[in-house]
């Protein structure tokens, strides 16, 4: 039984942000798969909920004329995984979406909720980091657009200002065109599990043998999702070889801030970062037409 003290539904973004501005206690609920769990565990008590499920403008995926792919925050993981736009243009995001939860959860959980929940383990986040996604945020004061890297502030903490709503996820063409990607969710179970480590790698090859660009997004390697700047800088212009990839794996660890918990030790997490970054990159190279790296 949930202690829900009030329940509101908005049909437009404006209505929603006005309600939020009028009542700072309101908690936005989309699919509810994080909010209700938090209520069950007592992390949110006596909530007043604002459902945004009826705001049609927040749904759906589109490719704009300039090539920008926009994803509405209310888009469910099932919709992301099945979207022709995503599958054609950014298949790695569909992969990541499919690794999430199980079919029932993917049918209700939204990508916006995944981001706004602020978890480092969010299965969409590492890929969106690698894609340099930008987030459109709306409040009664107006709209702003921020890079996803700046949006994540700490564990469970995101840069949502009072009365602000996430209204769109933008991926511009220079960030996906020409790239191939691969996502590895390393978890204890094959479904219904939180990642021990999430590794999203994008790469762009020159003549099939040089790394023109490599991007590495990691989840659960630090309090927030992260990129691996040193490894990425090292990769640029290097030949595609076992040695280069091994070095990229090593350098990826430098960006991490893993810690020991009962779930896994720091040493093991770092080992996984090194190993799985290489594996993901090798798989991405293959998809980019670069041939197999043993």
């Amino acid at each position, binding site marked *: 039984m949930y202690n829900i003290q009030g329940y509101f539904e908005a049909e437009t973004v404006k209505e929603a942000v006005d309600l939020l501005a009028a009542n700072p206690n309101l908690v936005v609920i989309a699919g509810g798969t994080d909010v209700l769990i938090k209520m069950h565990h007592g992390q949110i008590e006596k909530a007043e909920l604002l459902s945004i499920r009826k705001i049609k403008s927040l749904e759906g995926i589109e490719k704009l004329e300039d090539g920008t792919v926009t994803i509405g925050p209310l888009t469910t993981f099932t919709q992301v995984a099945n979207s022709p736009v995503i599958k054609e243009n950014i298949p790695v995001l569909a992969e990541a979406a499919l690794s999430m939860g*199980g079919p029932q959860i993917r049918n209700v959980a939204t990508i916006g909720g995944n981001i706004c929940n602020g978890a480092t383990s969010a299965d969409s986040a590492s890929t969106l980091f690698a894609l340099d996604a930008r987030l459109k945020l709306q409040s009664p004061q107006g709209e702003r657009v921020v890079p996803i890297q700046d949006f994540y502030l700490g564990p469970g903490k995101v840069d949502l200002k009072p009365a602000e709503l996430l209204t769109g996820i933008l991926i511009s063409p220079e960030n996906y065109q020409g790239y191939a990607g691969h996502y590895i969710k390393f978890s204890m179970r094959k479904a219904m599990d*939180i990642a021990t480590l999430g590794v999203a790698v994008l790469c762009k090859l020159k003549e099939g043998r040089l790394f023109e660009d490599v991007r590495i997004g990691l989840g659960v390697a630090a309090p927030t999702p992260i990129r691996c700047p040193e490894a990425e800088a090292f990769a640029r212009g290097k030949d595609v070889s076992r040695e280069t990839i091994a070095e990229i794996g090593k350098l990826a660890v430098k960006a991490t801030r893993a810690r020991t918990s009962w779930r896994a030790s720091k040493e093991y997490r770092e080992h996984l970062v090194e*190993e799985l970054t290489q594996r993901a990159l090798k798989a991405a190279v293959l998809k980019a037409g670069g041939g197999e790296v043993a």
Partner: protein
Amino acid sequence: MGYSIVGESVKRVDAVAKVTGKAKYTGDFLERDMLVGKILRSPHAHAMVKNIDVSKAKALPGVEAVLTYRDVPANKFATAGHPYALDPAHRDKEDRTILTNKARFVGDAVAAVVATDELVAQEALKLIEVEYEVLEPLLTPEAAMREGAPLIHEDCPRNIVSSAGYEIGNIEEAFKESDYIFEEEFETSIVQHCQLENHISIAYVDSDGRIVIITSTQIPHIVRRIVGQALGIPWGRVRVIKPAVGGGFGSKQDVCLEPLAAAMTLAVGGRPVKLELSREECMIDTRTRHAIKYKIKTGVAKDGKLVGMHITAISNTGAYASHGHSILMAGGSKFRILYPMKALKYDAYTVYTNLPVAGAMRGYGSPQITYAVECHLENIARKLNMDPIELRRKNLVQVGYVDPLNGNVVRSCGIRECIDKGKELIKWDEKKARYQNQTGTKRRGVGMACFSYASGTYPAGQEIAGARIVLNQDGSVQLQLGATEIGQGSDTVFAQMTAEILGIPVDMVHVISTQDTDVSPFDTGAYASRQTYITGMAVKKAALEVKEKILDFVFKMTGIPAQALDIKDCNIVYKHSGEAVMPLAEVALRTYYDLCSAHPITSDTSNNARVNAFTFGVTFAEVEVDVCTGKIEVVEIYNVHDSGKIINPQLAEGQVHGGVSMGIGYALMEQMLFDEKTGKPLNNNLLDYKLPTIMDIPEIGVAFVETFEPTGPFGNKSLGEPPVIPVAPAIRNAVLDATGVAFNRIPMNPQRVFEKFKEAGLI
């Protein structure tokens, strides 16, 4: 054997009710004016309640009662689902009260609230003020047995519940005779049943002043007795109803909620009270599987014959004894039949700690000891450069063997055939050869393990079962049992047995699935893989009695001697020719309405089975080990069982599928974790506790070697628990085969595998 219904995969009698949602579980009972009960749990692993102030909670609107240890009877009682022992020396340890003033684990029930709904109850819990005097938490058996450690229960020096063991032969002499001696240590972890339906009870006082408890249990008749004991009231004043149950695996072979639920309804003038645990509560305050540490020393002759074995087992039973030492003793007695040796010494210590209570769980101590012994034998075989299967074969039991301590006899034994079949199914020899000298990241290996188990508890426990059959006017029957259907399919096999004997189809056997201690025959319930074997005997007896009465009735009607008659396809027939004499329905109708001779036919039978039957089987597993990440994947797995005659192959396969899945979780993933300093549970939810999903379980191969067990009602022996028993050691032995690394501790989860591979230089 010429059976026509026994041995067939007939559809479960409860299939439609369950898949359509019509089957009624405890939570589906919506009693009028029902209140909700909630438990206040100790945040400390070991603490005295110095003071407890409930005034604020009581004042909260909607709160009907607040209970502490002062408000409930102080009777000490035992909770284990065992038959009552008339001899006080054989009773389970009575160490519990309904609520406690001494918290013995994080989650121990120190107070309770009854309120109009869950939210009010939850709110009221927060208003109860408890002052604790915190004591040192004892979280391992070593800490608890230490000289001078505080006592968790005052009457158990060094916190040892029992240290009873046994010695067969003379172990020291056996070691002297041996050519080699091997010594090793093994360790298993605390795991939880995670049955689908959480624990739930509803209690109220009926119009006659009796306490009625609707509850999700495996053992309704035992619950009645224990509630009587806990409340200090005559047992006949308690009525227990067991509706459909969504699994138990042993966690409901124990009395967890019912005494408190009864105390709650008494506190509110008999109004119905629902006491339902959340998953998080279920995982800490019902029961767990004992973590056990083994030291094994084994003497072996040059030819691989086992000469003697000395096992020291230390079992962590948690805060209350529950099934306590019975688990160590049952494990220690059921495994030993498999490889008879000259000498076997078993030193067994069951120790209290300040952790959740361990109790019965599928296999009852056997998965633990089988893990230790089957890993140990694998290691010995490797050291002797012997084929591990050969080593086992050299030592296997033969038909006719009599257990030297309890006198149980091996009357049927298909273990050799099980091994043959398993080897063939997994292509053992081919794979053994193929997987030598691997160096890659992903390495494969094959492994196997054997087990022996019993069918019921005799002679350690009494084995009594009841069945009642009523012949209806149309020739169908009502079958009533004290044995409980908890998902395993027992109602269906009992219907098959009845139909087989009475010559009617299964759909003419109406099984009363609900047990109600007011009306159901006496039976102790679902545990020890006993029901198809033990209750089956009672069902057979009752059905034969009904048949005899029917044929007698026909004799009176027709003058044809009963011995010349049989019942086939709903007809009375001549035995010799099969020629129909008259329809069964006609006889049945006359038993009710014949003006002269009417005498409706019933049988109300009890059977005290003073016998037991050994079952055997193997797991063969193939794994793929990712050497760089520590991930182990089971790629193929086969369980082959000798459970005697298989009554219903499809249901039997279902038991094996479930058991193997549970075994895979035990081997690779599952473990309850606690803060090492405070004893606080870290993962008592299904996200953090890694119960495998269907995606983590490969296709499971199942085969049976059908021996005929002469003591079984239809040649059958146990199958409920056995499938889980040999799985973990088989997987572990396959990992050893793949990597050369011997894990002597489960689960082999990636973190642990990583550490061990680093140690071994693989990473």
